[in-house]
C-alpha cells in the first residue's frame, strides 16, 4: 500500500496536475471565442474528460482530462500528502491552512458547478411578478383558460420535449406527442416553395410559417430559441382509434395559439421555463443616470417592494450595482434594463455553496501570509548572522 500512497502524496503529481490545469484553462479560455463562456465551461471545466466528437466512428473521444478529474486528482493528492508527508508543527501552520483552504475551495467550486442555478426576472414599472425565468431552458405551457377568473397552467419542461416522446397529463383530456424538437431555431414564411418536411403543422401559425433548426449558441448575449412540432390527440380508452386534434408549431416570440376541445379553451405556447417564488416583487421605479453629455451609464437602480405571500410582510428594497437583494435562498442582482428605462432585468441566483469560497479564501490568504511571514523572518535572521 505504501508505494501507492507515496505516489498519490507526491509533489510530482501536484505539479503534473497544476500543469494540466494550466493547459486546460488556456484551451478553455481560447475556445470561448467559438463556444461562448457557458459552452466552454461545460466542455472543459465541468466534465471528467474533454471529448471530441468524431463523426466517422460516431463516438466522443476523450483527449484531455477535464476540470473534475484534475480537481479530484488534486484533492486526493492533498489528502494523501496531509496523511503521509505533512508534519504537525507550529512552523507548518501556514502550510496546513493553505492546503485545507484549497480543499474547501475545490469542494466549493464543485458544489457551485452542480447546484448553482441562474435565472432572470424582468419587471416593468408598476408591474408585480412572482416567478423567475430560466436563462437557457424553455417549457411548453398549456393553459386552461376556460374560467375567466383563474387559469390552470400545465408546463412541460424542455428536458421532456427533447426526448420527443408522448406526454400524458391526467388532468388534460388529450395527449401530446412531440414530433420534432429543435434546440435552436429561426422562423421563415411558408409558401409554395416550402419543402414538404416543413409542412407538418396543419393548425395555427404553422400554416403561415415554419421553423428551421440552427446550431446552438453558447454566446453570452445570445440565447437559443427552441421550437417544436406537437400533435394533440384525444385519450382513447383502448377501443377506438384516438381522434387527432391537429399539429401545431410552437416557438417563443410567435403569437399564442388556442385550441378548443370538449368545451374547454386551451392556450398553447412555448416560453422560458418559469419557477414560482413564494413572494411577489413589484417594481416601483427604475432609474438610470448617465455621465453628462455621454451614454456611459453612471448608475442604474431598481426600487422594488417585496410582498411575502406566507407572512404577508411587505418590504422596500433598492437594488443597484454592487448592491443586490438577498431574499430567502435567492439573490437578485441588477443586470440590465430595456424598454426606454421602464423595464428592469434582474439576475436571480441560487447557490447553496455561496459562502464556501469566502471561508476557504480567507483561510488560504491567512495561511500564505503566515507562511511567507515565517520565511521572511528566517531570511532576515540569516542576513543578520551573515552581517555579524
Amino acid at each position, binding site marked *: 500500500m505504501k508505494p501507492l500512497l507515496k505516489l498519490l502524496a507526491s*509533489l*510530482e503529481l*501536484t*505539479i503534473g496536475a*497544476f*500543469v494540466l*490545469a*494550466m493547459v486546460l*484553462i*488556456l484551451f*478553455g*479560455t*481560447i475556445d*470561448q*471565442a467559438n463556444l461562448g*463562456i457557458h459552452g*466552454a*465551461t461545460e466542455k472543459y*471545466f465541468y466534465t471528467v474528460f474533454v471529448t471530441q466528437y468524431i463523426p466517422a466512428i460516431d463516438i466522443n473521444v476523450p483527449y484531455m482530462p477535464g476540470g473534475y478529474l484534475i480537481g479530484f486528482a488534486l484533492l486526493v493528492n492533498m489528502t494523501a500528502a496531509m496523511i503521509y508527508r505533512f508534519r504537525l508543527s507550529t512552523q507548518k501552520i501556514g502550510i496546513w491552512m493553505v492546503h485545507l483552504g484549497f480543499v474547501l475551495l475545490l469542494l*466549493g*467550486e464543485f458544489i*457551485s458547478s452542480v447546484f*448553482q442555478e*441562474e435565472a432572470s426576472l424582468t419587471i416593468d414599472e408598476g408591474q408585480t411578478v412572482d416567478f423567475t425565468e430560466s436563462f437557457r431552458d424553455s417549457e411548453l405551457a398549456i393553459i386552461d383558460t376556460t374560467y375567466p377568473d383563474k387559469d390552470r397552467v400545465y408546463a412541460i419542461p424542455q428536458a421532456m420535449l427533447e426526448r420527443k416522446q408522448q406526454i400524458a397529463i391526467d388532468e388534460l383530456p388529450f395527449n401530446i406527442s412531440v414530433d420534432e424538437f429543435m434546440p435552436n431555431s429561426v422562423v421563415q414564411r411558408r409558401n409554395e416553395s416550402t419543402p414538404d418536411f416543413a409542412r407538418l403543422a396543419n393548425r395555427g401559425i404553422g400554416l403561415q410559417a415554419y421553423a428551421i433548426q440552427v446550431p446552438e449558441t453558447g454566446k*453570452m448575449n445570445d440565447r437559443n430559441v427552441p421550437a417544436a412540432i406537437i400533435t394533440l390527440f384525444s385519450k382513447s380508452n383502448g377501443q377506438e382509434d384516438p381522434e387527432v386534434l391537429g399539429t401545431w408549431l410552437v416557438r417563443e416570440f410567435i403569437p399564442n395559439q388556442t385550441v378548443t376541445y370538449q368545451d374547454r379553451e386551451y392556450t398553447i405556447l412555448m416560453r422560458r421555463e418559469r419557477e414560482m417564488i413564494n413572494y411577489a416583487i413589484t417594481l416601483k421605479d427604475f432609474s438610470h443616470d*448617465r*455621465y*453628462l*453629455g*455621454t451614454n*456611459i*451609464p*453612471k*448608475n*442604474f437602480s431598481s426600487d422594488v417592494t417585496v410582498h411575502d405571500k406566507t407572512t404577508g410582510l411587505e418590504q422596500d428594497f433598492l437594488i443597484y*450595482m*454592487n*448592491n*443586490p437583494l438577498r431574499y430567502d435562498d435567492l*439573490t437578485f*442582482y441588477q*443586470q440590465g434594463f430595456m424598454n426606454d428605462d421602464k423595464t428592469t432585468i434582474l*439576475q*436571480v*441566483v441560487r*447557490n447553496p455553496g*455561496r459562502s464556501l*469560497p*469566502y471561508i476557504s*479564501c480567507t483561510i*488560504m*490568504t491567512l495561511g*500564505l*501570509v503566515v507562511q*511567507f511571514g515565517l*520565511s*521572511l523572518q528566517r*531570511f532576515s535572521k540569516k*542576513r543578520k548572522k551573515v552581517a555579524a
Partner: protein
Amino acid sequence: MKRSLFTIIALCLFFGTIYSNYKRQTPKSPLDYDSLGKVPVVLNGRIQPLDSVARNTLLAINGKSTATYQDGSRHKPIEWLAEVLFQPQLAVDRPVFRIHDDGLRAILPYKEPDQSGNMIKRMILGSGSSHHYYSLNEIRTAYDKIRQDAIEASEIEGQLRNRYQNAVVNLANNVIRFYNLTRTVHHGESPSFVDELTALQTIIPAAIEETEKQQRGEEFDSSKLSPMLGFMQVYRTFESEALFFTHPMPPVEGEQTWKKMSVALDEITRDGKPSEITQLYATLVDSYRQGDAATFNQAVPQLLSAIESIDSEAASKAKAERLFNYLSPFYVSIVGYVIVLLLAVFSWPLASQGLNRAAYWTTVAVFAFHTIGMGFRVYIIDYAPVINLYSSAIYVGWGATLLALIIEKLFKNGIGSFVASVIGIGSLIVAHHLIDGKDTLEQMKAVLDSNFWLTVHVLTVTFGYASTFFAGFVAIFYVIAGLTTNLITKQIAKMLSSVVFGIVCFSTLFSFFGTVTGGIWADQSWGRFWGWDPKENGAILLVLWNVIILHARWGGFAKTRGIMAMAIFGNVVTSWSWMGTNMLGIGLHSYGFMNSAFQYLAGFWILQLVFILLAYIPQNRWKSPVNG
C-alpha cells in the same frame, strides 16, 4: 562630497529634464495660451481643461502632440484648438487630419510628397509623410463618398473591418469631432459675437412684450418677434453639434450641472441679458479674430474666475490637470529611467560605488516623480490609480520600481536599479502606445464604479503582475549577464536566486489575494464567485504558475537555473493574463480591446522562450563563474 558627486550630477540632469520639459509646453505667442488652457469645460462626462481637450483631440486626428500648418510652422495643441473654436474659417485649411491608408488617400486630392529640403537627407530618411496630412477643406471634396463608406463600414463589427474600412470610420469620426468643435463656442453665422449679443439685448425686450401680448390673445407686431425667432432657430440647431459644455450652473441640492453655449444663448431670449461667462467667451472670440492680444489676455483670467465663482472644484481640478499635462510625468519618467539604466550599467565594469549610489538615488527621484504623476490622476478623476489598461501599465512600472528599491536597499549592487529601469522604460512605452488617441482619464461604467473594489482587487492583482515581471526580469538578467559577463559570481547567483524565490512567494500572495477579491467582487455584483471569464482564467493561470514554481523548488525539481527559467516563463504567463486575454475580445473584462498589438505580444513571448533556451546553454560555457 566626492562620494556623492555622481549622485548630484545625475539628480541635476533629471530635474533639468523636468524643468525643460515644463518650459517647452508654453506656446510662443502674445496671446495668453497658458491661462486659456486652464479654462474648465465638460467633455466625455468629466471636467477637463481646454488644454486636455486640445491635446486629446489633436492626438486623435493628427497622431501627434503638435500641429504643422500649411506654411510648415508648428503649433501647440492649445493654439490649434483656439483657432478651431474661435476662428474656424482659418482652421479648416490646416492640414491636421492624418491619413495613412493608401486607399483612402486615393479618393482625396493628390498631394505631392515633400520635395523640398536637402536631397541627401531625403534619400536617407525618405520623403517624409507630409503628404499624409489633409485639411478639412481638402477632405470636403470627397466627403460624400467618405460618409457613405463610413456608414457601410460601421455596420461591420470592429474586428472584421479591413484596413480601409477602419480608416474611413476613423476619419469620418474625426471630421465630425472637428466640425462639432467649430460649433461649440460660436456658430460662426455672424462676424462678431459681441455685436450679436448687443443686438440680441436690444431686440429682446420688445420681442418679449409682443410674446406676452400674443399669449394674452391680443394683437401683436410679428415684425418685432421674427428677429428673435431667427436667433432662436440658429441656437437650437447648434445645440446638438456642440462638443463640450461651457457653462457651470449654480448647484441645485448639491448636484452640479453644466450647460452648452447654445443653451446659454437661448436663455438670453428669456432673461434679456447674457451671463458673464457668455459675455467673456464672446470677448475672447472677437479679440481672437481681431488679433487684439491685450483684450484677449484680460478676458481669459476673468473667464477663469467667473467659472471658479460658480464651480470652484472644477476650476482647481482643471488647473491641476493642465499642470499634469505640462509636467508630463510619465514621459519624463522614461528619460529618468534611461539615466538610471546607464548609471547602473556603467557602475559594474568601473566597479564604481559612486555610480551605484547615483543609480539608486536617481531611481528614488524617478519613482517619486512617477508617484506624483499617478497622484495627479487620482486627484483629477477621483478613482483608484488603475482604471484601464493604460493606467495598469503605468502601475506595473511603478510597482516593479518599488520592489527594486527594496531589493537595492538590501543588496546595494545596482541590479535592482537596473531591472527597475528596464521594466520602467518598457511599461511606460507600452502605456504610451495604449493611449491610441483616446482620453485615458475616463469615467467608469456603473458596474466598475466602486473605488473600494478597484483598490482592493485591481491594485493587488496588478501588483501581482508587477512582481512576477520583476522576478522574470531578474532571471533574464541572471541569464544574460551570466552568459556574457563575469559579473555573476557564485555569491551573486545565490543572491539572485533568493531574490527571485522571495519575489515569487510575494507575487503568489498578491495574485492569489487579487484573484480572490475579484471573485468576491463578482459575487457581489453578478452573483457568481467564479465564472471562467477570460480575465479570471488569466489571473488563475498566473497563480498556478507561481504555485508550480514554489512546489518545484520545495520538491527539489528545480535548482537555481530551473527556477530562473521558470521565472522567465512567468513573463509569458503574466503578459497573457494582462494583455492577451483582452485581445480575445470576449468576456466581461474585455475593456480596451486591441487587435493590432497581438504581433508585439507574440514577439515578446518568442523572446522569452529564447531567454529560456539561453539559460540551458551548459554553464561551463558561461563567462560568469556561476558555480564558483
